[in-house]
């Protein structure tokens, strides 16, 4: 603390528990911390650590089966009276609570889509707080709402007032939620993972906005997050919780420079960061131990991808791939006009045998569409995909009937969501047997053996085979998904955001496993992610996609050291590092809105005379730029 600030909120020995079938679960077990006026306190922890429960306790909006068992939450707010009030001790329907909620303490939620009602306009939902706490008339409150929308950066605040949430982009929705939290000028804002659901460039914009507004109104923020990068950039003080207990608390400098608690140290080592050397491993929080690595070597001889003596020919070639989605707007009576959305626009790349190509892009950039096109899950509008298989060259997009069926064995996918990608009504065994069944591989005995081997390969106990997916954690489910993908000995593996739904610690385990499998089995892989640090950890080369176009492709060291395309640059500049010496440069982050190319130099935009084309720089560095541009201009 640079200067002595007034205390605002004090949480003392808080205990919260939830009634579940057959007993109670203690979610928070004796947490104490305090907040001062106008400071940002970050509450850090993995999912299930109880951090959201603490926030809900402060506002007293716990789900109906949750109760505060003991402890005090003292709120010192001059506007609501001289003496501090113990929020935890109030009755559920105490008028003080209704005054406090939204008026003095407000909340920003994680999912801006579901946090807003789809049936009411943004303006209506924002001004509601004013009507409740300020007794304002409609005209007056509308004026203030439009003002606050302008303040949070709505391009057209008057029009924004009339919009429904589903008409806005994710970033704008979150701005609306922040406007809602700010409108009554509260003493404190609780932000529950406010940027987790957003793209990295939008995240940077929202963080900048929150920081600005926090300074401007001298509001205290309780920032709940699992992302240490966000913490480093936003917080003054940090509180680390684990399993409902406080692990460590202190000023942000101390926490980052001299972490004391082993949990905090482990948490920091588990996050992939950009300064990692090639071959450096993440240290996962709960290590799988030695036996897993042995298991990999034991089975690798059987699962190894064979037949690639010559590694100079690419394994997979994608040439000028394009995909248009056409939505019909007509009806039964009218022909209507078809509106075309170009999801993938002239994308070309190659993957060498045994290589891992990272495909990075924000939501809507078309990266998943590319993977579906390669998988032949959807059909391409134009272009070519060639696979240099063991059995010869395959023209993937031209495959039909039995050939296509045969192709499916050669390429497999690992999905993003480990919960919905496994059928909850099938045991792990039947999930893993299914690929063998479908492709009629082996006899019952050999399948049985293979399934056990697969389990060992991904580091799961084969005794779990008869369980159902719900009895596994997210990380274990993802292992099952990986085992299923490996069952048919594929040559190429596509990983579509395989760790984005997982906690940091589990993420490290899965990334290590994927890396081990890849090097041991010699798998060629395409790794899709929005997280640059993760891609940096696993990929050999990285391709960056923006609005359906591949804008830059380079070996990973080259890309991070010397990004050329303005989009790549802005992407790299938006990543929050968990490092106090490399904070985000908020000055350079700008709200781009729909016209994202406006800040790009002319060299990267098409003009009347010439379109865009891929320009080759040295070291296999390719960038999409204007055809007539001078090479030296780019570098």
């Amino acid at each position: 603390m640079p200067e002595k600030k007034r205390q605002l909120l004090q949480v003392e020995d808080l205990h919260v528990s939830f009634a579940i079938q057959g007993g109670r679960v203690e979610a928070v077990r004796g947490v104490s911390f305090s907040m001062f006026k106008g400071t940002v306190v970050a509450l850090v922890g993995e999912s299930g650590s109880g951090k959201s429960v603490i926030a809900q306790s402060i506002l007293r909006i716990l789900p109906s089966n949750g109760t505060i068992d003991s402890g005090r939450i003292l709120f010192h707010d001059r506007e609501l009276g001289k003496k501090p009030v113990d929020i935890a001790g109030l009755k559920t329907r105490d008028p003080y609570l209704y005054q406090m909620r939204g008026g003095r303490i407000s909340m920003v939620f994680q999912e801006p889509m579901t946090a807003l009602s789809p049936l009411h306009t943004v303006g209506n939902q924002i001004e509601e707080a004013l009507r409740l706490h300020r007794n304002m008339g409609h005209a007056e409150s509308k004026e203030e709402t439009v003002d606050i929308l302008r303040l949070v950066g709505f391009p057209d605040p008057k029009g924004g007032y009339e919009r429904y949430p589903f008409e806005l982009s994710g970033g704008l929705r979150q701005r609306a939620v922040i406007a809602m939290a700010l409108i009554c000028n509260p003493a404190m804002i609780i932000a529950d993972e406010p940027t987790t659901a957003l793209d990295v460039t939008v995240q940077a914009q929202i963080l900048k906005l929150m920081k600005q507004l926090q300074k401007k109104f001298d509001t205290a923020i309780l920032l709940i997050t699992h992302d240490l990068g966000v913490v480093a950039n936003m917080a003054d003080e940090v509180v680390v919780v684990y399993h409902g207990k406080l692990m460590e608390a202190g000023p942000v400098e101390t926490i980052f420079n001299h972490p004391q608690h082993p949990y905090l140290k482990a948490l920091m080592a588990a996050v992939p960061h950009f300064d990692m050397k090639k071959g450096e491993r993440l240290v996962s929080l709960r290590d799988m131990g030695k036996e897993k690595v042995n298991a990999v070597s034991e089975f690798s001889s059987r699962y190894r991808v064979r037949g690639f003596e010559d590694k100079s020919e690419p394994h997979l070639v994608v040439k000028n791939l394009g995909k248009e989605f056409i939505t019909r707007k007509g009806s039964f009576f009218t022909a209507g006009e078809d509106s075309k959305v170009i999801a993938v626009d002239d994308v070309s790349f190659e993957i060498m045998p045994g290589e891992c190509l990272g495909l990075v892009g924000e939501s809507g950039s078309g990266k998943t569409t590319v993977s579906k096109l390669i998988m032949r899950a959807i059909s391409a509008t134009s272009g070519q995909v060639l696979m240099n298989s063991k059995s010869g060259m395959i023209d993937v997009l031209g495959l039909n009937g039995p050939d296509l069926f045969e192709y499916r064995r050669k390429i497999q996918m690992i999905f993003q969501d480990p919960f919905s990608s496994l059928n909850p009504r099938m045991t792990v065994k039947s999930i893993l047997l299914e690929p063998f069944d479908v492709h009629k591989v082996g006899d019952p005995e050999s399948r049985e053996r293979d399934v056990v081997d697969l389990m060992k390969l991904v580091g799961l106990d084969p005794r779990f085979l008869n369980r159902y997916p719900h009895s596994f954690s997210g990380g274990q489910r993802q292992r099952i998904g990986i085992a299923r993908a490996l069952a048919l000995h594929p040559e190429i593996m596509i990983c579509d955001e395989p760790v984005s739904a997982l906690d940091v610690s589990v993420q490290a385990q899965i990334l290590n496993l994927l890396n081990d499998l890849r090097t041991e089995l010699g798998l060629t892989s395409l790794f899709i992610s929005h997280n640059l640090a993760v891609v940096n950890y696993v990929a050999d080369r990285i391709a960056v996609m923006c609005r359906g176009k591949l804008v830059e492709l380079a070996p990973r060291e080259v890309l991070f050291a010397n990004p050329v395309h303005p989009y790549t640059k802005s992407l790299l500049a938006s990543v929050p590092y968990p490092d106090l010496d490399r904070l985000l440069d908020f000055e350079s982050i700008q709200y781009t809105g729909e016209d994202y190319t406006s800040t790009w130099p002319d060299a990267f935009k098409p003009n009347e005379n010439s379109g865009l084309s891929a320009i080759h720089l040295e070291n296999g560095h390719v960038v999409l730029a204007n055809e007539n541009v001078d090479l030296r201009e780019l570098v």
Partner: protein
Amino acid sequence: MLSYIIKRSLYMIPTLILISMLVFTLIELPPGDYFESYVAQLLASGETVDPQKIEFLRREYGFDLPPYQRYFKWVIGMVQGDFGYSFEYQLPVREVVGDRLWFTIFITFCTIIFTWLIAFPIGIYSATHQYSWGDYGLTFIGLLGLATPNFLLALVMMYFAKEYFGTSIGGLYDPEFIDQPMSWAKAMSILEHLWIPVIVIGTSGTAGMIRRVRANLLDELRKPYVTTARAKGMPEFRALMKYPFRMSLNFFIADIGSILPSVISGAEIVAIVLSLQTTGPLLISALQSQDMYLAGSFLMLLAFLTVIGVLISDIALAILDPRIRLAGGVSR
């Protein structure tokens, strides 16, 4: 919005044409026609039949024509407001149905209102007090209502109405008002009799409705925007009404389309037991005696009501839910 309503109304035309074909086919399916069953009936009672007269009647009403010609005759007549002639009653269909239709619509309307008035508060209570004694108790009563056969309930209610209120058995009004023009006394008598069919027909619908209101509201109560509203400091009841309840209305409005025909057709047995002057018993007897025009017009009427009900619910949904109104980027 206007273009949506116009477009949506135009969709009704092909639907109704298809339904009319279906209805006509259904009526044509049983072998024979009204005259055959008429002859059989006369012979059974020992009377002589003049085959020439029957033949003449057949020609007169176009029964010798091929089916598609009869279909067009029927449809064109309906469009002009001529619903054909009921052989059994020897009257134009319009006159036979006449009053009965209004009574039916009236009873249906009252029943729907009754159902809503009971089901909504109970459903909301059950959802907000899930797994409480109140929830279980009310659910139990609702399920009893669902499980009791309607005709049985009708008999029991009639008995008690006679016993305690002196209401005459059966009918929609006291016997002395039969064939009387509408008057104040007759209207009062109708109101006195009305509550029995409304309760009887309404109970089963109410139980189902309670469950649906409860289930839909429970889904919505768990949504994050409810937490948002609470975090804003909204009083619980106001937040409940403005957000989750409003959202849960969607299902319910979508339901109006199916509620109209189900209440009308579901009430036939009860109407017979209670000897109500509604359309249900008429339809059943018309179908039994193959009174083709009467039955056909009736079924068309039901279909028309259904289509109208769906139209109303679609328009109401579009007004209530901006996601439907603005779907596909329609300009405001």
